[in-house]
């Protein structure tokens, strides 16, 4: 019984980590239909930036997180403005943007490697200590991660629902010609979207690094997992990403408990296959 409860907690922890991995990806895809194959490296970059502010400028970690955000925003905007914007206008935009981000990812990964070296870096936990919930022990840091995921969803959904920019992003996501007709500057919105998504991704990288530690190539793992989660939950949907992440986190934790850690990927593949056959649009996705 206790091990089942523990597995449940583990599932929640993994689930919130996976949700963090998937958020930036789902935002960028949901609005611009660009599949960010540089996602993992952008996350890693966010982690390294926060780490730099934290260790070199001796800022408190939470403050260095905030300092990292505008840098990531700018990077996202620049990537859109000087590369993706042009690619999106050309035929075969789907795959050429994928490849561009892939190339950029490889380049960034190795630049990070040259600058920061190959040693594993750790970023501190947000809060220390742990609390007991009945018989189950949960680390405060892990609770904080779950709360951040929850807050993240609330903030993002409110942003998309209430603010003018957020509404415009949703409008662009749902109908580009429609957005043009009502006078939305689509390219500007895409620019904001990339900025926002890079910001969220960078932030998530810094959070993930507190659990996974940081090394330049680790981003690829995050990205592949992110893809699975986003597809599982429903492409481009924020609640979808979170639900997908939780389901996969639970699956991972109970598979490990019942069968062993090596069975996680095969179980995921089968779940994914079954889901796609029953609901090709993903768990939460509304339309295909």
């Amino acid at each position, binding site marked *: 019984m206790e091990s089942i409860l*523990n597995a449940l907690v583990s599932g929640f922890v993994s689930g919130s980590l996976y949700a963090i991995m998937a958020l930036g990806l789902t935002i960028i895809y949901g609005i611009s239909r660009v599949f960010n194959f540089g996602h993992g490296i952008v996350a890693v970059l966010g982690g390294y930036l926060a780490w730099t502010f934290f260790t070199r400028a001796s800022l408190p970690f939470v403050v260095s997180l905030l300092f990292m955000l505008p840098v990531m925003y700018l990077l996202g905007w620049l990537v859109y403005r000087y590369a993706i914007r042009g690619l999106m206008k050309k035929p075969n935009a789907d795959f050429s943007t994928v490849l561009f981000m892939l190339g950029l990812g490889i380049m960034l990964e190795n630049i990070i490697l040259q600058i920061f070296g190959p040693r594993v870096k750790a970023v501190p936990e947000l809060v220390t200590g742990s609390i007991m919930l009945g018989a189950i022990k949960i680390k405060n840091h892990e609770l904080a991660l779950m709360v951040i995921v929850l807050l993240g969803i609330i903030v993002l959904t409110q942003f998309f629902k209430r603010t003018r920019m957020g509404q415009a992003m949703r409008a662009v996501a749902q109908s580009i010609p429609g957005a043009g007709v009502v006078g939305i500057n689509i390219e500007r919105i895409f620019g904001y979207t990339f900025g926002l998504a890079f910001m969220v991704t960078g932030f998530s990288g810094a959070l993930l690094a507190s659990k*996974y*530690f940081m090394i330049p190539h680790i981003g690829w793992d995050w990205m592949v997992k992110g893809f699975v989660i986003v597809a599982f939950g429903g492409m481009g949907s924020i609640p979808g990403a979170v639900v997908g992440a939780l389901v996969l986190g639970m699956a991972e934790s109970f598979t*490990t408990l019942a069968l062993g850690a090596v069975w996680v990927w095969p179980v995921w593949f089968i779940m994914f296959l079954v889901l796609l056959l029953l609901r090709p649009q993903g768990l939460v996705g509304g339309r295909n």
Partner: protein
Amino acid sequence: MQGKIGKGLMIVCVLSLFIPFAVFAGGQKDDVILIGAPMPLTGPYASDGEQMRMALELAVEEKNAAGGLLGKQLKLITGDVGALEPEKIKAVGERLAGQNVHVALTGYADSGVDARVFAQYAMPYIHADAMTEDALVARKQIADTGTSNLFQYCPAEVAYGEDASEYLFKVPAAMGWTPPNKNIAVVKVDYSYNILAADKFAELSAAKGYKIVVDETIQFGHVEFGPILSKIKDAGASFVTFWDLDPKDAANFMKQFYDAFIDEGIQALVYMQFTPVIPEFLDLAGEAAEGLLWSTTVNPVSDGVADYDKRWIAKFGSEPASSYSYGTRDGFDLWVAAVERAGTVDDFEAVIEELKKTDHRGLTGRIVFDPEDHTAYAGMDYIPTVWQQVWGGRHNKSFPKEFAGGYAYKLPPWVK
């Protein structure tokens, strides 16, 4: 369409033909001795590769400053084997051979493929992969041809398993603690270096009457250990052994183990193969590592270490950060010694004959090659497996006594 085919193929072929020639445009001068160094400089093992390269740079610089080898200057050519993909190791091997290097020297470039690749060439290949795979290749070559150009200047990984099954069960007594049972948990990563060692340990321990109650294989990058820890607790293992080369995985395991059991306590010791020697481990695991036992066969144990550290710091401005900072130097030194004894660097057979006779007292111990597989002997008289316990935020050599310096085991904080 026909036009396209012609043009396309023309371009492809012209390009294909020219690029390899461009690679070897520059010829080699006769008065330079080339050291080929296949090592992981990018990818997941880049952290070790960096130390190997630094060790060789320092060695080459010092040797050149002292007048070179046989009066000739040394030159280092590195080859990045990335994430140790067989394909890459092959390509690097072919390239180094094509550049006519006089020796291939590395800390490791493993996965078992490197030995097969370099066995095809005449020059000596000197490595510390610590892999049975490699030893088997050399053994076969020796059986077939009477000799081999492969030399592994450290014991193979199974030595860890043999040593741990020999010694681990004696630790409780040294701590004054009685384990509640003979149950063992094995958590190993899916990588031959770790798997073969862990399986050897499990096999030998089982023969001694110990019982493997958890046998979990994980992938590199495993993060959430909760369910595995539950299994360990439910099965009531009193010896928890962890075999995973990646310091991130090891640190995560240790942190989660500590968090899970520090309050209520668990009657168990934790042992790790090799990994804590990687300097990041202590940074990442922090106080959670207090009380951890671990062992490694590549240790800076000789008297020359302090002086070596000084020279290293003078050159690079940082301390040697891995056991490969030392091990790689031993590989270099024993090759230099063999060349000097042979009096030639070009006659590979002569150099290999001298390498076989190696009895080198290096930074990591006394290196003597087993004539059957050219792997360095393990043991107190040769390369010792040194046990350490993490305590007070640092590693304390605890066994064998010659290295222990009076350190006595302490009961890990979670044993209550």
